[in-house]
Structures are given as C-alpha cells and as structure tokens.
C-alpha cells in the first residue's frame, strides 16, 4: 500500500489494496468452492488437517517470538499469560480484553522505560 502511494498517490494506494485483496479473494473462494464439491473425501480432510497443523505451529511460533526477552520481562509475560487465559482458555471476546490489557501493558512499558 505504501509503495502504491509513493508511485501514484492515493489512487495508487487504493489500487494496491484492491489488487492485493481481491486477487487472493478469488483464488481462496475458488479453492473453498472446490472443497465443498469434494469435501467428503477423507484424503482431503487429511491434507487440510496437515496444513492446519503447520499453520497453527507458525502462529504459535510467531506468538512465542513476540514474548519479551531480557530483563524486566515478568510484567509483559504476565500480560501475555492473562491474554491467553482470557481469550484462549476462557474464550472471552477479544475486544474488551484487548482494550483493558493493552493500556495496562503500555503503561507498564512506560514505567519500566522510565526506570531503565
């Protein structure tokens, strides 16, 4: 999007977004259509389960990488655990949880930044 903006101004940004979104959109929905036609096959389910497992692994790995390292990590770790508990385990809606925890976490980082 930023590239589109630089090359052609606002119109370029819009075109970049539309192209990026709607190209894949047709491919993905096309795949899903194919899936609903032949979704009964257990081989397909096996393949999809494998892809899902790898993608979940990627999501986990990305999340774990975001965890803080170094000193003063107890607070951020507690925030991450609280997020997992509320959203992942208790299945509370994400929006109020984020609206509570994000300011808290930013405040914590602010305080720690001052002390550092």
């Amino acid at each position: 999007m930023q590239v589109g903006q630089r090359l052609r101004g606002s119109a370029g940004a819009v075109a970049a977004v539309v192209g990026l979104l709607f190209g894949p959109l047709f491919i993905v929905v096309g795949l899903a259509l194919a899936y609903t036609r032949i979704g009964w096959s257990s081989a397909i389910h096996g393949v999809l389960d494998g892809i899902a497992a790898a993608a979940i692994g990627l999501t986990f790995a990305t999340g774990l990488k975001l965890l803080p390292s170094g000193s003063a990590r107890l607070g951020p770790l507690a925030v991450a655990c609280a997020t997992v508990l509320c959203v992942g385990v208790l299945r509370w809606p994400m929006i109020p949880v984020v609206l509570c925890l994000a300011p808290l976490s930013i405040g914590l980082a602010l305080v720690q930044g001052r002390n550092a």
Partner: protein
Amino acid sequence: MPDDLRTLLVLVVVFVPLSLLSIGGGASLLADMEHQSVGVHGWTTPREFADLFAISRAAPGPGTMLAALIGWKAAGWAGAGVATVALYLPSSLVVYGAARLWGRWRGSVWHAAVERGLAPVAAGLLLSGGIAVLRVSPGGPAIWAAAIIATVLLLRWPRLRNKSDDLGEVTSCRNI
C-alpha cells in the same frame, strides 16, 4: 433478501471492530473469528472452520483470507467481499494515518512504550488463536502433536518460515 442484507450487516459489525484491533497482524484475530463464526453466529461448523482456516493458509495472499471464507459461507460472494473489505479497510486506513504520525514520534518514550506494550498482548492473542483453531479441529491429539512439533521446528529453524507469513500482514504499529 432482507435476511441476506442483515447477514452482510452483521459481518460488517463483527469484522470492523476486529480490524481496528488487529495488533500483531491478522492472525491475532483467529480466536475471536472462531468464536464469532462457530459459537455466536453459526456461520460455519467447527469442522468447516478448521478446513477453511487450512484453505486460507494454503492460498497466496494475506494470511487472513479466512475472513473472506467466513463471509462466503455466511452470505455467498457478497459476503466474501463485504467481510474482506470490513476486515482490511479500517486497519489499512489506520496504518495509513499512523505511518505519518508514528514517524514523527520515532525515538520518543511513547513510541517505545507502545511498541513494547503491545507485543505481549499480540503474543497472547496469537497463542489464543492457535488454541482456538486446535479446539475446533477434528484431528484430535494427532493434530495437537503435529502443531506442537511444527512450532518447535519453526522456532529452531526460523528459515522455514515463509516471509509473507511474517507479522507484516496488515497492521501493528511494529511494522510501520
């Protein structure tokens, strides 16, 4: 027709707020997308959600084409278009605006605090998203094991990661 229209409106009402809060990229929304489409609105069965998740990750393009698939299940092609725009447009606009502001703040105490403060929340959301998909996936213990093995492998050998799957999906102040 009014029913279809209502579904489209509900898609907007569900996805626009999520879009604005997608810290850490689209994958951080997985948990809530599962909750909304399987639990609250019944747009997909658990099995369908797991399969659509896999399809969305197997295809090229932004990682959360899942929104398009949920919209498509809920209300056909119109639903797919509406859900995609509802998920991407608001956060894109925020990024567009924030990119300018953020550049000015670079190096300030606030800039660092916001970045460091949002990271653990994003981490928690990503882990929750993985758990949410595992919960609806019908693969049982085998898929849990496979997912954990994949996690360990990806942490050990980061080069296995596909660059486009990295955090740089749509939002996150971290990417600006």
